[in-house]
C-alpha cells in the first residue's frame, strides 16, 4: 500500500495524527484542485475544510483495490468544491477575465499525471475532437457547468451536452 493508503486506513481508525500527516502531504495539491474549480481562496479553503472533514469521516470507505489513495482524496475534495460551486450559483457565468476569474484552461495535456493510467488517458484524450476534449477538461478541471462551457466554446447548450456525452463514451471505449 502507498503511504497515503496506509494513512487512510489509520484515519479510518480515528487517528487524528494520521489525518494531519495526510494534510501536510496533500493539502497543497488538493488546494490547487479546489482553486481551479472555485478560483477564490476563501471558497477553496471552505472546500478543503469540508473535504478533509469528509475524509476523516469516510476514510473507511476507501478501497485500495478500486484506485489510488491520491485519486480518492482528489475526488473527495473535487466534489466538495463542486458542491460549493453549485451552491453559489454556478449557472451564472462569471468568467470575467478582469476579475481574475479566468479558468485554468486545462488544454495542456502535458501536465497529466505520469504513470500508466495517465499515459493511456492522455493518448485517448488526444484522439478526441478538440471541442469534445475541451468540454471534458473545462468540466473536470475548471468545474464549469454545461451552460458555462457552451458560452466559453460558443456552441449551443444542446451541442455541448451531446459532445461531452459522446466524448465520455469514446473515452470509455478507448480506455477499456
Amino acid at each position, binding site marked *: 500500500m502507498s503511504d497515503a493508503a496506509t494513512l487512510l486506513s489509520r484515519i479510518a481508525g480515528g487517528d487524528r495524527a494520521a489525518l494531519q500527516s495526510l494534510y501536510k502531504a496533500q*493539502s497543497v495539491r488538493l488546494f490547487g484542485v479546489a482553486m481551479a*474549480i472555485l478560483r477564490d481562496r476563501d471558497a477553496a479553503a471552505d472546500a478543503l475544510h469540508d473535504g478533509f472533514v469528509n475524509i476523516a469521516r469516510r476514510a473507511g470507505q476507501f478501497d485500495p483495490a478500486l484506485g489510488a489513495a491520491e485519486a480518492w482524496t482528489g*475526488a473527495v475534495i473535487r466534489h466538495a468544491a463542486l458542491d460549493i460551486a453549485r*451552491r453559489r450559483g454556478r449557472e451564472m457565468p462569471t468568467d470575467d477575465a478582469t476579475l481574475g476569474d479566468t479558468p485554468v484552461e486545462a488544454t495542456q495535456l502535458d501536465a497529466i499525471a505520469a504513470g500508466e493510467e495517465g499515459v493511456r488517458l492522455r493518448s485517448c484524450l488526444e484522439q478526441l475532437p478538440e471541442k469534445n476534449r475541451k468540454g471534458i477538461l473545462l468540466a*473536470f478541471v475548471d468545474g464549469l457547468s454545461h451552460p458555462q462551457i457552451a458560452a466559453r466554446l460558443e456552441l449551443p447548450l444542446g451541442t455541448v451536452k451531446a459532445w461531452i456525452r459522446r466524448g465520455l463514451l469514446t473515452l470509455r471505449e478507448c480506455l477499456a
Partner: protein
Amino acid sequence: MTPEERDGLAAEYVLGTLEAREAAELRRRMETDAELAAAVAGWERRLAPLLALAPPEAPPPDLWARIERSLGGIAAPARTGWRFPWPALGIGASAVAAGLAAFLVLRPPPQAPLMTVLLTSRDQPAWLVEAQGDTIRLAALNQRPVEPGRVAQLWALPQGATAPTSLGLVPEGGRFSVTPTTLRPTPGMLIEITLEPPGGSPTGRPTGPILFIGRLSAAGGA
C-alpha cells in the same frame, strides 16, 4: 435504467456537470445501488490523472486548525457490524492510550531555536525572526507603514523547495507569530515578506516585490 444509462450518469457525476439536485439524488442512490457506486468509482479512477492539471497552491496557513476544530466533536468514524468489537472487550481505553503513545512518539524531538533578521533591499535590518518548535515569531525593528492599498504577506521557502508557502498576511502592529501547519521551521529556510494586493497574493505565489528577506539559522551560533 440500462447499464449504458447508468454509466453515462456516473460519468457526468464524476465530471461535475450534474446539477445540485441530480448530484444529490445520485449520491443517495449510490448508497443502495452497488452497480452505480462501482460505475462512479470506475470513472473516478479513469479521470483521476486529470487532477494533476490543477496547479498546486498552498492553502491559508490557519486552515488545518479550522479542520481540527470542526472535527473536535467527531469521534472515530462509526463502525458497522462487528468488524472492530474492541470496546466491548474493554480494550477501548488502552487503544486510546496506544494512540496517545503513538502521537507522542511521532512528535519530532524538540529543536534548538532558529533565528534571522529580515533585511530590506538596502540591507537595513527590519524584522527579528525567531522560530521555536512549530512557531515563528516576528518583531519589527523599524516599523514602517505598508504602501496604501497594499498588504504585506509572509512566506517561507524550505531549502530544496521550488515555491514558497504563504504563512499569511502581516498584521498591523510590530509583533506577531504564526504556526504553519504545512511546514516546520528548519535551518536554511528562507523567510520573506512581499508587497501584495489587498487580501494577499491571488495566485498563492508571491506576485509583488520582496520587501524583506532572511534565512533561518541556529540561534547563538553558526
